[in-house]
């Protein structure tokens, strides 16, 4: 016959409060989470990490003696791809360990048979995602164990003595939480956290220990943090568990922060049942935090405590409950990877439009977008921006430094040096571009962000005659081969006549030669979407007006003849937009009558050396009828549009020099 009796003496109990002293001291505000510290209050705040965060904490329960400092645990967080962050927390110190003293009387002999009850939340893992500058989301899973070690049921006789044989029962549960963080302005953050939304259990305590099972109460907490003035953060939080908190953090100077928080609950007495004060100091890569948490009601926190089975119903949080004693927590967090202070912050990125591979070389000089940067330091900075698209750029392209005054903002134009790979893009696609901003000469960036980049296909054209120049490829071997072959084949006619007319004769031979090979020439109207490269036009033996103009410009340029596009966009009739070619006959204006007696057949304009020379208009869409017909048609068009119609003076006729 075995009789059981229970005593009410706490022998080893340290319900440790929340892990991070910063979090405890500021009221455990979900909206106040900015890095790995206290992330379980809202994992969405992890997105505020720089790169690597590593934290270690220890604590001492001041209300009890003899325990010394307890290793609370460590946290580790990593931000990656700018929009993602993960963290893991190992906290062996977050536990409630209770010995319930008892004796068992066997055959009139009292045998000690203390029951050990332990609750712990040793592991939490979290993931955060930044959807935009304002919104981020986080999820986390917390492991909870409930263990009872009971020696009161089995006994064995050892050396003629009866000794109890402990038997251990463990129930393990995983709880899933989900959080949202919303920052409508840079001074206000709102967060929401759903705790215990899902639970998965493995094992369960025997029926006779059901009184020791902790309750599972899903809850929702809302939190807001604001900075009404610089260097001050205040916030409050409320939960559906009828509890809440208030907290603040003030950083007056020297990276020193002073913190304070109050905790309130309808289930506690008094209503405001706990307060915390703390301080933090940042030095280099380290954050040193300390806080002291103390409670108004000490009845269950020191000395004898009521039976644990009578308290477990009120334990909503293993870290913060009726058994948690007053205690001091000290923690150190180190920022790894990025060890310097952030000086510049990206406020936004604006892309001016898509990237046209044909003009990729010009993008090294012409901005493709801009990044809006803010100097968040108290000293002037020289900010540089870099832009990078994987695969199509060999390395990030950096801009010139831009001066930004303290607290000031500036737009930095983005340029990009693409590689040849961009000219292989068959059709339009979207890629991620990485924009970084750095305010020092260090390689690491102060801030990074991703932006969508629209990459057009290699033949896409934006309809601007200036962009059409980039399709002209006089150095293409196929272009050179064609023009040289033709000049060689017709060398007799090329070499006959005055030397001053050699460019004119070369042009006539090349144009006539290609005209004789053409299979088709499409609608002369301009198509503002697709342009063939000269090698493609030579291969296909045809194209539309833009294709032909580009091809002839390339052929003529390949033998040293300057060319220009005549871009005609009649006012009110954009559908009649058209483009044709001018080439420099290389004949001085005073000899113009050697080319044509009718001055309407040519245009006098300065060449690159400033010499006024004769330029011949060529309408490439009638090229199949030969050089002279194309010249006549081009001259007539030019005279009608540019001279009679005053198109050149009024801007609807443009001459775009090619070479």
């Amino acid at each position, binding site marked *: 016959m075995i009789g059981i009796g229970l005593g009410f003496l706490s022998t080893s109990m340290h319900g440790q409060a929340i892990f991070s002293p910063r979090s405890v001291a500021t009221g455990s505000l979900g909206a106040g989470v900015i890095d790995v510290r206290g992330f379980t209050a809202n994992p969405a705040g992890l997105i505020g990490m720089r790169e690597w965060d590593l934290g270690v904490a220890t604590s001492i329960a001041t209300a009890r003696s003899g325990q010394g400092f307890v290793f609370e645990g460590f946290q580790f967080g990593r931000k990656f791809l700018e929009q993602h962050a993960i963290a893991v927390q190992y906290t062996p110190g977050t536990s409630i360990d209770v010995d319930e003293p008892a004796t068992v009387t066997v055959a009139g002999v009292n045998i000690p048979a203390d029951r050990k009850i332990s609750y712990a939340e040793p592991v939490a893992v979290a993931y955060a995602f930044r959807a935009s500058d304002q919104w981020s989301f986080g999820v986390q899973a917390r492991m909870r164990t409930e263990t009872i070690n009971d020696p009161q049921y089995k006994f064995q006789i050892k050396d003629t003595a009866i000794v109890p044989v402990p038997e251990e029962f463990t129930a393990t549960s995983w709880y899933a939480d989900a959080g949202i963080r919303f920052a409508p302005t840079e001074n206000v953050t709102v967060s929401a956290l759903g705790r215990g939304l899902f639970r998965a259990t493995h094992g369960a305590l025997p029926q006779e220990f059901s009184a020791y099972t902790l309750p599972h109460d899903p809850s929702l907490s809302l939190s807001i943090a604001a900075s009404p003035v610089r260097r001050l953060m205040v916030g409050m939080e409320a939960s559906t568990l009828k509890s809440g908190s208030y907290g603040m953090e003030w950083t007056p100077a020297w990276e020193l922060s002073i913190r304070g928080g109050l905790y309130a609950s309808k289930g506690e007495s008094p209503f405001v049942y706990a307060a915390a004060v703390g301080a933090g100091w940042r030095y280099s890569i380290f954050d040193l935090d300390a806080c002291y948490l103390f409670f108004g009601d000490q009845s269950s926190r020191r000395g004898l405590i009521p039976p644990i089975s009578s308290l477990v119903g009120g334990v909503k949080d293993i870290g913060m409950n009726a058994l948690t004693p007053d205690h001091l927590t000290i923690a150190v967090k180190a920022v790894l990877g990025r060890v310097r202070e952030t000086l510049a912050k990206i406020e936004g990125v604006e892309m001016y439009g898509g990237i046209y591979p044909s003009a990729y070389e010009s993008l090294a000089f012409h901005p493709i977008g801009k990044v809006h940067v803010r100097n968040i330091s108290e000293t002037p900075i020289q900010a540089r921006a870099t832009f990078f698209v994987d695969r199509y750029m060999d390395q990030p392209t950096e801009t010139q430094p831009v001066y930004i005054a303290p607290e000031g903002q500036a737009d930095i134009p983005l340029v990009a040096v693409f590689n040849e790979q961009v000219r292989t893009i068959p059709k339009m696609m979207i890629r991620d571009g990485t924009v970084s901003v750095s305010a020092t000469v260090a390689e690491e960036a102060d801030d990074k962000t991703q932006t969508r980049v629209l990459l057009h296909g290699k033949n896409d054209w934006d309809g601007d005659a200036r962009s059409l120049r980039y399709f002209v490829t006089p150095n293409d071997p196929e272009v050179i081969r064609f023009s040289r072959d033709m000049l060689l084949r017709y060398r007799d006619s090329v070499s006959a006549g005055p030397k001053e007319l050699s460019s004119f004769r070369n042009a006539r031979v090349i144009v006539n030669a290609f005209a004789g090979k053409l299979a088709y020439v499409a609608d002369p109207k301009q198509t503002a979407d697709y342009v063939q490269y000269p090698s493609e036009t030579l291969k296909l033996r045809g194209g539309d007006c833009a294709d032909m103009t580009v091809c002839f410009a390339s052929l003529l*340029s390949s033998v040293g003849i300057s060319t220009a596009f005549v871009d005609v966009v009649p006012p009110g009739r954009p559908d009649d937009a058209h483009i044709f070619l001018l080439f420099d006959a290389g004949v001085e204006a005073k000899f113009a009558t050697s080319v044509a007696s009718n001055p*309407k057949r040519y245009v006098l304009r300065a060449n690159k050396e400033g010499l006024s020379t004769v330029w011949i208009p060529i309408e490439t869409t009638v090229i199949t009828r030969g050089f002279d017909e194309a010249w006549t048609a081009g001259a007539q068009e030019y005279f009608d549009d540019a001279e009679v119609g005053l198109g050149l003076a009024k801007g609807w006729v443009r001459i775009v020099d090619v070479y």
Partner: protein
Amino acid sequence: MKSLMLVLAAGLAFHTAAGEIIVQRIHGDVSVRHGVAEGWSKVASGDVLRPDDTMKTGEKGAAVLVASTPAGKKTIALPPDVIVDMSDIRDLSPEDLMLKLTMEKVRASSYQWKNEDLQIPHAAVMHGADQAPASLHEGDPAVGILQFNGVHVLFTNGFYATCALKGMEILRRYPSLESGFDNRFLVAEALEKADLRGEARNEYGTMTAMAGLTPAQQEQIRARIEALRK
């Protein structure tokens, strides 16, 4: 007889459409060149000319044209030895003239090449210089003179804007005519009449550097500049 001709001319002009130019009467050697064609062809009274046509009168030729302008019908007499582009028989606003002049300056300057930061290089680069003597001849000044006579016609009939533009173009094409004081004075005067006082003053100003000016000519230029300063 003259009155009858005027009445007939007026009646014919009444039936011309706006912008059209009708050959009212011709005498002697008168021909026309259509558009950008190279050759000249005969013209007859009553022919309607297009804006891209050019008319030429011979040594003993003459013609009377009736042009429809926004201000109404205008009769233009072409004396012997002139070449006139029909596109020049029109009024341009000072703004249009200013734009044209600016564009002409751009076209005549290598500045236009400096606008783009990316130039497509030539595949063929010529090194050295061809030392062979020039084998072309400058345009026949006689043709230039005929065209400049046409510029006088434009001035006489009040088409000052096109007169100035055409005069500058011809001087550029026939540099030998540029040394003629009267030619340049006519261009400057046309600019003045077209209400481009600044441009006219500049033109008069550049004339002061001409070689061989007589004191009378110098005084004439100075007087115009002074008048334009007021």
